[in-house]
């Protein structure tokens, strides 16, 4: 057999010249599929805008009931979002860092508000506060000892929003801590930290983006909450009416224009708050 000397000729290509082809189809398909959802949202908002007019906005906003609903919405969403993060941060940390017996059960329990129809959350809250307990119930006990009425009052709005929003905040915080390497906390322990110090001085400062994200998600979920509020807090004008119930109340009496105006107001409020929170979050993280 004749073997060609290695240096006798220029190397022959092992395969025909490869032409990778265009990336245009890739971006067309990916962009087309992803863009269709963006388009749907934009189309819905555009239709709302086309349907309403500045006159409808002014008319809707001049109503004292709607002004009250705007105020209650902003306040209740902010309180429930802060409460959610306050609870979600330790819970997310514990679930992320420690394995213990029964963790799967806690995981499952936390996911219940996420998968349950919101109306059922409201109903369950209502039953929880009015279930007879030794001749009394939780509602009466709270009123007796804290002097606060919960059901069909403003606290019920916050509690209904919190019950759902917190589950989303926990998920966010858990993922956040999962993504933070535990090694730095371990080193902190060898340097003399207690667990609490390692959490507060090492883990939490790294979790800022997650805290901001959890706050944003909890606020947005609270803004969109309707079912539990309707069942647990009712839809009393100038009392427990938030913007989502305003849309329902206006629609139920055939007032489509104010309903759309309020819907757009909610979109604006959401975009404004989400934008500001994200901006603050990015600045803090930097």
């Amino acid at each position: 057999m004749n073997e060609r000397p290695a240096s006798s000729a220029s190397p022959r290509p092992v395969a025909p010249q490869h032409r990778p082809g265009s990336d245009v189809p890739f971006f067309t398909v990916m962009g087309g599929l992803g863009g269709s959802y963006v388009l749907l949202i934009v189309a819905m908002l555009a239709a709302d805008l086309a349907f309403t007019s500045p006159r409808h906005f002014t008319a809707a906003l001049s109503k004292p009931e709607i002004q009250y609903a705007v105020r209650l919405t902003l306040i209740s969403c902010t309180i429930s979002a802060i409460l959610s993060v306050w609870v979600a941060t330790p819970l997310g940390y514990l679930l992320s860092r420690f394995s213990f017996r029964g963790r799967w059960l806690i995981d499952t329990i936390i996911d219940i508000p996420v998968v349950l129809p919101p109306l059922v959350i409201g109903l369950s809250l209502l039953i929880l506060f009015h279930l007879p307990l030794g001749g009394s119930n939780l509602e009466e006990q709270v009123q007796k000892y804290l002097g606060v009425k919960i059901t069909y009052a403003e606290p019920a709005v916050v509690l209904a929003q919190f019950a759902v929003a917190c589950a989303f905040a926990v998920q966010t915080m858990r993922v956040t801590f999962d993504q933070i390497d535990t090694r730095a906390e371990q080193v902190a322990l060898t340097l003399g930290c207690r667990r609490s110090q390692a959490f507060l001085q090492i883990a939490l400062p790294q979790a800022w983006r997650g805290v901001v994200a959890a706050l944003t998600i909890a606020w947005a979920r609270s803004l969109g909450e309707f079912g539990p509020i309707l069942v647990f807090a009712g839809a009393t004008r100038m009392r427990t009416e938030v913007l989502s119930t305003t849309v329902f109340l206006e629609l139920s009496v055939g007032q489509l224009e104010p309903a759309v105006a309020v819907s757009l107001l909610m979109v604006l409020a959401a975009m404004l708050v989400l934008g500001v929170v994200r901006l603050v979050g990015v600045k803090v993280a930097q």
Partner: protein
Amino acid sequence: MIELDQVSIRSGSFGLTNVSLTIPEGTYAVMMGGTGQGKTTILEAICGLRPVTQGRILVNHLDVTQWKPAARGIGYVPQDLALFPTLTVRGHLEFALRLRRCSRKVIQDRVAELAHVLGIEALLERRVRGLSGGESQRVALGRALSFRPRVVILDEPLTALDETTRDRLCDLLRTIQKNEGLTILHVTHSRTEAQRLAEQLIVLKGGRLYERPLTELERPQGDGEPAADASWTLVERTES
């Protein structure tokens, strides 16, 4: 002094059984061994980050087996350094001293001393993101030494460094160890590093610790841990 007395450690499906080791006070010990043998597991057990299922761990003649990591007073530099992303270099050097509620003067003096020894004075106000490999190693070392531990554990601290930086850091480690009389357990894959630093050579192979003479490092076997042969003797005591 570091002593492992028939220690067993279990981590998921991986485990080490009846591991024993003694590193005398003021000794620079180098541990070598192939990947996945359990070197880091042993170091973590000494630091208190991994529970032992059996046996005792003694640091400076005290049984610290059940002690929390914070109470053991061991300086630890993990393989990935694990610097604190939200702190400055100064923050790293001050961290352990603040925990010990040292006075401002003591903290300032110690930070200045460490920064000078480690050559990181110019970096003190910088955050750790963006530091070079060598700079990061120095910061991690400074953080571990800040509270003047008597025992220091280094888990492959000089990997991913160029040769010049590695040589410089080896000299630095040796100087600090001599000056402060530290007991150091240093894990490495590098024969060169071991040659420069080791006063005691320990090899982990097949779940067993072997103490080998330093001359073992001079055999021409290329870089990497010495290969086991019949002449090797176990460090650990066998169960009676």
